[in-house]
Structure formats: C-alpha cells, structure tokens
C-alpha cells in the first residue's frame, strides 16, 4: 500500500510540474533549435525531470527545467556537429545540420555573431523569456551576480556592434575587424 501510495504521489507531483513547465519549456526549446529537433529535446527534458523529481527545487521549477533543456540542447548540437563533420569527411561534400540558416534580422544576427554562447543565451533569456538576472543564474549554473554583470556587458557589446554596423553603411560586418577587412578588399 505504501509503495502504491508513493507511486501515486510521484505521478501527482510530476503532473503538477508538467502543468507548470510543459508549455514554456516548448517555447524555450523551439526558440533555440529547429522544430523537428525540438520535440525530442522537450521529451528528453521531461524525462530528466521525471527521473530527478526529488531534486527539482520547488521554488524554481521552470528555471531548473530550462537548465536541463539547455544541457540537452548542447549535447544535441555537439552530436549534430560531429555527425556533420563525419559525414562531410566520408561524402566529401558539405552537409547541413539541424539548424536553419534563414536570417530574420541580418544586421542583428551579425551583431550577435561575435558574442560568446553564454552572452547570447543571457540576451535570449532577457529578451525572450523575460527573466531577471537573478533568475538566469539557475539556468546557466552561474551566480545571480555574475549573470547581472555578464548581461550588462553583453547588452553593451551588442549595442556597440549594432552601432558599428550602422556606421559602416549597412555593411553586415559584425565587428570593426571584419568591416575593415571588407573595406580593404
């Protein structure tokens, strides 16, 4: 009876967790990976949440779920990159990865391109998930203070890159170095 009760409790806790995180989690993942791959990542993340139900912090369930999804996304990218490199070695022709390459806002994309992966993720969490720096810490595994400082710097750098791009007459150059190189050529 005790064991059955445990199972029922666990199901109930997971269903409550799923009700809270499933939709925002899908949104988080779809913002970061092609839709075809997103469903796998969401399912893997939900499975991790089920397995680790006992350690999910009750006051930060969604942030914790984002952090798990982020790890699955990173592993997926590594695997895809490895497969693509392997395939291109074998077939000696370029292969595409799961990521689309349709620029939505080419100027913005260029301005983002020389930021670090972490800085780009901080900007996404800020602009898309609308998180506060204190909430970004658990997602990225860094302190709230570090998140606040890095986000501040990332915003400044992105703003500067956009300015530079504009000054160069709409060149898609994302940094001075690239723009100057283009100017010389």
């Amino acid at each position, binding site marked *: 009876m005790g064991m059955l009760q445990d199972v029922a409790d666990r199901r109930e806790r997971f269903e409550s967790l*799923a*009700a809270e995180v499933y939709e925002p989690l899908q949104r988080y993942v779809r913002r970061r990976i092609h839709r075809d791959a997103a469903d*796998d990542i969401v399912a893997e993340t939900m499975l991790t949440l*089920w397995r680790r139900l006992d350690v999910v912090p009750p006051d930060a369930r969604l942030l914790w779920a984002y952090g798990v999804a982020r790890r699955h996304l990173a592993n997926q990218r*590594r695997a895809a990159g490895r497969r*693509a490199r392997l395939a291109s070695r074998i077939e000696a022709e370029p292969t595409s990865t799961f990521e689309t390459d349709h620029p*939505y806002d080419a100027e913005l994309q260029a301005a983002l391109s020389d930021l670090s992966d972490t800085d780009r993720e901080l900007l996404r969490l800020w602009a*898309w998930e609308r998180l506060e720096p204190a909430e970004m810490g658990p997602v990225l595994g860094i302190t709230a203070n570090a998140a606040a400082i890095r986000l501040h710097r990332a915003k400044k750098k992105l703003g500067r890159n956009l300015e530079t791009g504009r000054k160069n007459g709409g060149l898609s150059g994302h940094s001075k170095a690239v723009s100057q190189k283009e100017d010389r050529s």
Partner: protein
Amino acid sequence: MTDEHLRDRLAAADPSADPMDPVTSDRARALMEDIMSIPTVQTPTSAGRPYRLVAAVAAALVVVIGGAALFARTGSSDAPPLVLTAEGGDALASCMPFEVSTLAGMSPAFAGTVVELTDSVATLEVDRWFTGGDAETVEVRYTPGFEALIGTPALEIGQRYLMTATEGVVNGCGYSGPATPEYEAAFERAFDA
C-alpha cells in the same frame, strides 16, 4: 541604443509566435504517460532514451523557421579546451568496485573521441557532456601506464572514450574507458542524461 530598444529588437526576432502544444492535449498526455511508465528506481538495464516516445506521439507540426537561427552558430563554442592530467601507475592494486553511485559523484564526465595523440597528450573531441563542463575538446596529459589504468591496451585515434576526472585528474579503475553501449548506459544512469 537604450535597453528597451535593444530588447524590442531582439524580441521582434523571437521565433516562437505560434501556439504551443497544451499540456492537456492527447499528444502531451501520451508523452507524460509514457514517461511516467519508466521506473525511476534504476535497474541494470537502461530505461532507454525517449526518442521512441517522440516517434509514438508524432503530430502534424508547423515548422518554425527564421528566429531559431538568429542566435545559432553551428557547433562552435567559446569554451577553451579542458586540460586534465592522468597518471599511470599500479592500476589494479588500488581499485574499488565500480558503482554507478560513485560515478554519479564525479565531475567532469564526458564522452569524446581521440583526434590527436602524442606520447604524452591525447586530445579528445567531446560529443557529449554528462556534467562539469562544456568545452569542445579535452586535452589529457598522461604518463606511461595510463592506458592500463583506463582498461585499454593502447590509446587510439578515432576511438571514443567515456571519461571522468576528480580535481583535474582522470579517474581510472572503471571510471574511464573505451565507450561501449553498456558503459554509456551506466553513465546515463549516473548522470540522469
């Protein structure tokens, strides 16, 4: 450019405008039921990865293009290589029995393929991080005898290994070694990956 302008500009490129699958949908219900049918008390047989779950609940989907690529840069990472050391030694003399629960406490843990090899350095390209890092490559600086410690006659280029380290030193005694599906399943159980 003010913060607000910057945020608006980024928000305009948000790719996820279409509605999400609600948690009450048949598809979501089926997924959750499949997940909850997986025992959480880990047994020696792997519970398996949920790809088959996804296949089972495939639905008509609208492909989102555009914004997903906004921040995407294929594969490249800004993380510098992780450097680990490894010492050969009397490997068999001091080994404890292998336990998944011990493995679970180790960090970092990763899977990678040897892409460069010298007499003292093996460079591994990481394809999977279980915990404790996000570098694309790991350099293992080793001394003779290391091969035996991780249960292989010789390091080989192209061979994939599962490795853990503690305080920057690679763990032997069954806690690092050539990758096999069974061995990787143990890592998956240990790290809930």
